[in-house]
């Protein structure tokens, strides 16, 4: 067996729902539609779709850490915020020339990952697990929020970048790709759309491969029974830490893209609500599967936004009802439930045919 097919074979596996030609055909169609769609749409819708896409990365990160790894983390928003602020600080100080925004993107994500490495080392090597991990990460996140919120004074500056407290930082440059005929600036419309869509595809497929690889096996094994995993010779804490750092980097991508999208980052992006929302998306979609998380996040975001637009003051009530019903009706998550149903129907059909 040669390398590449073996590698691609990992796109499918027990860890991810969606298998076989039928799935990949649908996948290709959906992706083609996603590529073509800006051509038939207005600037607002495209920008708004980018905004939805931006959140998918943090949802996937939580899917990885919580759904697959079994560690409940309220801390993804902390990494989101750190990456966002880092991008702001870097670009406000060094500008956007020579493609520096792309460097800043990478650096910002690296800073978030580094922070996660530190925090994760602290937690996993202190053997904190389960719900307690959730509450500790929540505490860290809220602490960051509180801290950033009180940096309103002029003494809180890094280089020329004011941290600006609760009001947040703004006016950082958008992503800019250096180009011979003049830089391409990715404002929150078609340019950024394709960039984010491409990144999303890459991350999604990459995570599928990762989760179906030996590494992914170990991650779910640790979720199921860390003691057993250790007794099979796996350094549990190391695996947990690596997962946590990868997750933080993904959350960092969201953070940078969010900052780029609105040219704005605020401490409330690390607040209680912000910390709970990714959990909601992931749980509603189906936390133990990447595809479900991806679809679920987009569905919930769109539904919540639509409710806010059309539901006026009843929007939050509807959202609440929706969440409660979803949890009651679809125990594994809405999207995962539907996908399982489809695959069950499909197998029954094909069995019926022969």
């Amino acid at each position: 067996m040669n390398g590449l097919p073996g590698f691609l074979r990992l796109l499918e596996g027990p860890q991810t729902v969606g298998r076989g030609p039928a799935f990949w055909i649908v996948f290709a169609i959906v992706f083609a539609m996603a590529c073509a769609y800006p051509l038939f749409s207005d600037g607002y819708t495209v920008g708004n779709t980018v905004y939805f896409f931006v959140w998918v990365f943090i949802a996937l990160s939580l899917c990885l850490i919580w759904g697959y790894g079994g560690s409940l983390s309220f801390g993804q928003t902390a990494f989101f915020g750190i990456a966002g602020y880092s991008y702001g600080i870097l670009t406000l100080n060094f500008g956007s020339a020579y493609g520096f925004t792309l460097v800043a993107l990478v650096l910002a994500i690296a800073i978030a990952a580094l922070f996660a490495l530190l925090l994760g080392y602290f937690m996993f090597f202190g053997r904190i697990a389960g719900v307690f991990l959730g509450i500790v990460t929540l505490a860290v996140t809220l602490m960051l929020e509180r801290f950033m919120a009180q940096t309103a004074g002029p003494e809180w500056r890094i280089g020329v970048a004011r941290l600006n407290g609760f009001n947040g930082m703004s006016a950082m440059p958008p992503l800019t790709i250096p180009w011979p005929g003049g830089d391409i600036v990715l404002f929150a419309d078609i340019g950024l759309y394709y960039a984010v869509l491409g990144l999303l595809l890459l991350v999604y497929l990459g995570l599928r491969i990762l989760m179906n690889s030996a590494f992914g096996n170990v991650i779910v094994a640790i979720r199921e029974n860390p003691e057993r995993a250790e007794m099979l010779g796996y350094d549990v804490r190391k695996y947990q830490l690596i997962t946590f750092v990868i997750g933080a980097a993904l959350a960092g991508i969201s953070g940078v893209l969010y900052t780029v999208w609105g040219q704005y980052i605020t401490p409330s992006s690390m607040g209680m609500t912000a910390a709970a929302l990714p959990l909601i998306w992931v749980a509603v979609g189906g936390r133990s599967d990447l595809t479900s998380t991806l679809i679920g996040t987009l569905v919930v975001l769109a539904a919540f936004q639509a409710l806010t637009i059309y539901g006026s003051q009843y929007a939050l009530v509807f959202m609440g009802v929706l969440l409660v019903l979803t949890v009651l009706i679809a125990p594994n998550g809405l999207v995962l439930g539907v996908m399982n149903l489809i695959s069950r129907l499909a197998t029954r059909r094909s069995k019926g045919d022969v």
Partner: protein
Amino acid sequence: MDIATHIFSALYQFGDAFAFLVLSACGLAVIFGMMGVINLAHGEFIMCGAYVTASTAHVGLPLPLAIMAGAIVAALVGALVELVVIRHLYDRPLDTIVATWGLSLIATQGTLILVGSSMAGVGTPFGSFQVGEYSYSIYRLVLFASALGVLGGLYMLFNWTRFGVLARATIQVPHMAAALGVDTRLIYSLTFACGAGLAGLAGGLYAPTMTLVPTMGATFIMEAFVTVVIGGADVFLGTAPAGAVLAVVKSVMTSWQGQLFGQIGLLVAVIIVVRVLPKGISGFLLRERT
């Protein structure tokens, strides 16, 4: 200024912080510690208690009775919520995060729509007293006493009564408890209602001292969670010492550098305690006991 004034003021601040932490946390601790349910609607049960207390006080019920009414209504609402929603989620406690978040949205915004954006306050009873050059609110001492009362009551309820043992058994191995003749559904209902009622009681007790708005529960949430983390899994052993430790941290930091440091002190305390005692204070105590 004489030393006694200083000591009294430090004690008073400690008691005040302790009461707030413990009363905020008790309901959450019962529901989390006993049932493994992270109740993100905890603040809304507090709000419910406060609203019922204020509205019954407005129609003329004496304050102590109004507070009891707040606690009882919150408990009943809790029982209802358990019956309709939580009951179906015991085998997947993490999903209760989503469900209770949903409930909290419904409760907050529903109250805003039905009752309006705020409610008139009831005023703090009992007036003030003077020690040295400081004057203090007497009602705050009542809060402190209530916190001690609640802690004692809870400890007795769950450790000395049959209900307590059955409840803890049910939470640990539900199917086995059922097979031994325990009506586990009833136990779950009662436990959840108890947690909700305690939240309502906290709301009722603080109603005279606070802004009454639909989002008021949010101001209790962080203190509640922090106390529960530090307390650890065994709420009856953990909550009191956690409240005490945090109250010291909070009151000392606040008087030293102001409210921001009080808040940050709490969070730093969480990190430190969790690092040193990953299972919280109760985990530490239990390990020593065996």
